[in-house]
């Protein structure tokens, strides 16, 4: 089975180490979680995996082949998709056009791209939003459109950067169901980066915990829930903001 892997990846910004020898694997059809306190290096790792950040040391490999020196659009064309914190939709374009951009970016004709975009909106359950201008959408719909945009062209891997931020527990439940379907029905390897630790513990097959740029723990949700190191990492930072995290870890 193929795999997307970060192998001993380190990133330094002007002497400050954002990532220290991080190794992580994502497998098609599985949901992996990446958690850690603010500033742990989660988004930096996603940027490395998707070509937005060159690692200072180490490598990113897809099925054993290095992705070094590939630009972000070339990484995407190899089937590695991502979403961003805050959605980053093309705000002046209609929702269906947002999805169509990925289609044409991957080399489809506009006609095939719009057909796949319409089918994708159907699959996610947001067909009614197709003609809406993306900039007018509520926050939660923005997230679902961003996921639909990333799923265009049947990527083998999707990296979701804080997709549940700002969602109510009910909305986060709907999102969980969607992420499960992405892995099961589409066979996509999912990397879920999320502050909602309860969501990650409930969804993921395997979880990696980062703190200060280094992997401090990894394993099954049960192992992460029981880990003293993880609890200590969250308690050692902003205790107030991470109270829900600690509750999820109880």
């Amino acid at each position: 089975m193929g795999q997307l892997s970060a192998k001993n990846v380190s990133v330094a910004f002007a002497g400050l180490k954002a990532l220290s020898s991080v190794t992580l694997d994502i497998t098609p059809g599985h949901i992996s979680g990446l958690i850690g306190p603010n500033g742990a290096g989660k988004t930096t790792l996603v940027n490395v995996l998707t070509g937005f950040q060159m690692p200072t040391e180490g490598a990113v490999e897809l099925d054993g082949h290095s992705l070094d020196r590939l630009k972000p659009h070339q990484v995407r064309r190899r089937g590695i998709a991502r979403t961003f914190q805050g959605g980053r939709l093309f705000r002046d374009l209609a929702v269906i056009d947002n999805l169509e951009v990925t289609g044409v970016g991957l080399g489809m004709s506009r006609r095939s791209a719009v057909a796949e975009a319409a089918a994708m909106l159907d699959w996610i359950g947001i067909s009614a939003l197709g003609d809406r201008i993306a900039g007018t959408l509520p926050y939660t719909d923005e997230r679902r459109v961003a996921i639909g945009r990333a799923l265009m062209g049947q990527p083998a891997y999707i990296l979701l950067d804080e997709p549940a931020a700002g969602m109510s527990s009910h909305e986060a439940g709907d999102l969980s169901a969607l992420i499960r379907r992405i892995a099961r029905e589409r066979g996509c390897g999912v990397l879920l980066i999320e502050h909602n630790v309860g969501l990650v513990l409930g969804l993921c097959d395997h979880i990696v915990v980062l703190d200060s740029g280094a992997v401090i723990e990894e394993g099954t949700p049960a192992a992460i829930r029981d880990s003293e190191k993880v609890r200590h990492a969250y308690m050692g930072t902003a205790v107030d903001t991470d109270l829900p995290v600690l509750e999820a870890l109880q």
Partner: protein
Amino acid sequence: MTTATVSPLPADLLSSRKPAPFSLARRTIMTPVLLSLLILAIAGLTVLSGSKPFNQAVIDVFVRVTLVVGLYIFIGNSGVLSFGHIGFTCMGAYAAAWLTINPIMKKSALPGLPQWLLETRLPYWQSAFLAALFAGVAALVFGRVLMRLSGIAASIATFAMLAMINTIYSNWEDVTGATSSVVGIPIVRTIWPYVGAAIISIFIAWGHAISRAGLALRAARDEPTAAAASGVDIPRARLVAFTISGAVMGLGGALMAHSIGVVTPDTFYLGLTFITLSMLVVGGMGSLSGAVIGVVLLSALIQALRWLEAGVAIGSTTFGLPKGLQEIALGVIMIVILALRPAGLIGNREITSFRRSSRKQSSQQ
């Protein structure tokens, strides 16, 4: 290694959703049609008026429509402000001169031209086509380097390109006549070739806007990071627009040469850059309709100011405005419009006969 995965969804899922052929073209075609009708209406009224000065003034308007639509193709879709496109107009104008001046005149005025070019004399429409091609190829060559840049660096680099082109054309005496006027270009006084060029440029801009490259470029203009993550090769999308717009600017340059019959490098420098950019900004940088309407409105204003500068006789006294007022007025109007409507008069919208689809169309174009 996993290759690009662009396999569509299952056929049964797609078939129920497959849009009708050319549906996007049908949904958006009214914009270029209505703009073309506007051009034709102005041309018809001009012919009916029978006034030669008015005919010349309207020819100037149509040349500017071609130029500003050429600017829109790149600036409007990419969001990168280019100060260098008039360089392609210069190249188109001189190419038209090289291809249409009487060979005897060319041999004395431009002896450095290659022999085959010295002996060539083509009809104006053939020279205009070749001038557009020449400028398009030049834009492709310059664009290969420039389109890797973004933001202010790209804008400054395009300005440097304009300065380079101007310097070459101002100093290569045997080929361009340096700063001297190149005369003897056949003047085309009938309005219809200019109407045709303006309409062709409008349809080229529309065709680019509804193309894959056009959609990808507008997405990259709004969210470059997300566009790259969607598989969009941003420098390539920009290069496509830069090349097409360069060719349209070259076409405009050839027409300009045939409308005035004489070219000098300074005709195609900062003054023309300022006026054409003003028209685009005033109309609305993100709209094809804005590009055309900006030209028509500002050209009308410039013409009115010219008449006022020349002086208006009231009784035995002639009242005239100070010379240079038109440039000042243009600057003031641009500042006022930018302050009140930063996206220009038309904004990002397009004119269309279907009100219901106007919002959707603005997203498509």
